């Protein structure tokens, strides 16, 4: 008896192949979309990093948790009214977290009469959080 000889694809095979290709393309587009999301988040991060500069040389904020407006971080500057209003409207939260504490031992120990003081280096991070962004700064405090 002559067996059926198969030399070409069936319609089902072609359709399955097309479906597989579609799924792969969908996955590629999805991957691209993820890249776009990552790019946007990096862009926002770069934009918001500048607000961390407000904590530099700022003894009033950053070492305790506080609810403030962004204007409070720039209070030492006599800002023009539009900028002042815009910053006042943006509520922020400043959070401090201690990362590491290094005990450097006793300072002034070489002198018998001098009062003994312990020097501690504290490494922490201050975070500024608003509805749109969050940025942080590593800080070093000598106690």
């Amino acid at each position, binding site marked *: *008896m002559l067996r059926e*000889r198969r030399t*070409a*694809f069936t319609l089902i095979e072609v359709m399955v192949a*097309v479906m597989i*290709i579609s799924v792969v393309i969908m996955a590629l587009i999805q991957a691209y979309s993820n890249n776009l999301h990552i790019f946007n988040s990096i862009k926002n991060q770069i934009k918001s990093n*500048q607000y961390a500069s407000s904590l530099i040389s700022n003894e009033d904020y950053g070492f305790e948790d506080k609810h403030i407006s962004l204007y409070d971080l720039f209070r030492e*500057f*006599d800002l023009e009214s539009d900028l002042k209003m815009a910053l006042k409207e943006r509520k922020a939260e400043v959070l401090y977290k201690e990362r590491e504490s290094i005990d450097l031992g006793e300072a002034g120990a070489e002198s018998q009469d001098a009062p003994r003081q312990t020097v501690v280096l504290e490494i922490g991070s201050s975070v500024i959080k608003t509805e749109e962004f969050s940025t942080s700064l590593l800080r070093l405090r000598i106690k």
Partner: protein
Amino acid sequence: MRLRRSAFTLLELMISISILSIMMIYLYKSHAALNVSNSNLKDEARRVENIQKIKKVVYLDFLTALPSSTLITNREKNEDAVFLQTSHSIHRRFNPYVAYLLKDEKLYRLESLRRIADYELPLDSEFDLDYLGEVDSFRVYKSSDIKKEAFLVHIDFQTIDDVLLKIKVLNEY
């Protein structure tokens, strides 16, 4: 005896071609959209890179400014002219004089070995000019705390994100 099948039928071929054509149309659309999107992304990346460069230059200029060398002149509500001497140079100069000036809503950075202290520049001035971008506002505020020399630079660009940087001068007395 069973029928021997060796190729597609015309119907199968036509259905396949139809499916493929529809797929090709969507693929082409997707590819075109991807190209446009890539182009936008490239422009955006260039803008981000540009703003980072500007921030870096402004930050280093003020950070390494020589003590009490910064002069801020308020010209209009949204316009300051700033003159300073700094240790930072982008044109390989030693302690150059730098000025940030606004002209026709365009912000320029001038760098020279000769002192620049006035908005109206003398005719024999020699300087390098860098264009920073079109701005709606350029203001520099000095800290009211007399114990430290710190500045807040606010540049409101027209096409890119605004810059708001607090800079504490490193070489203060």
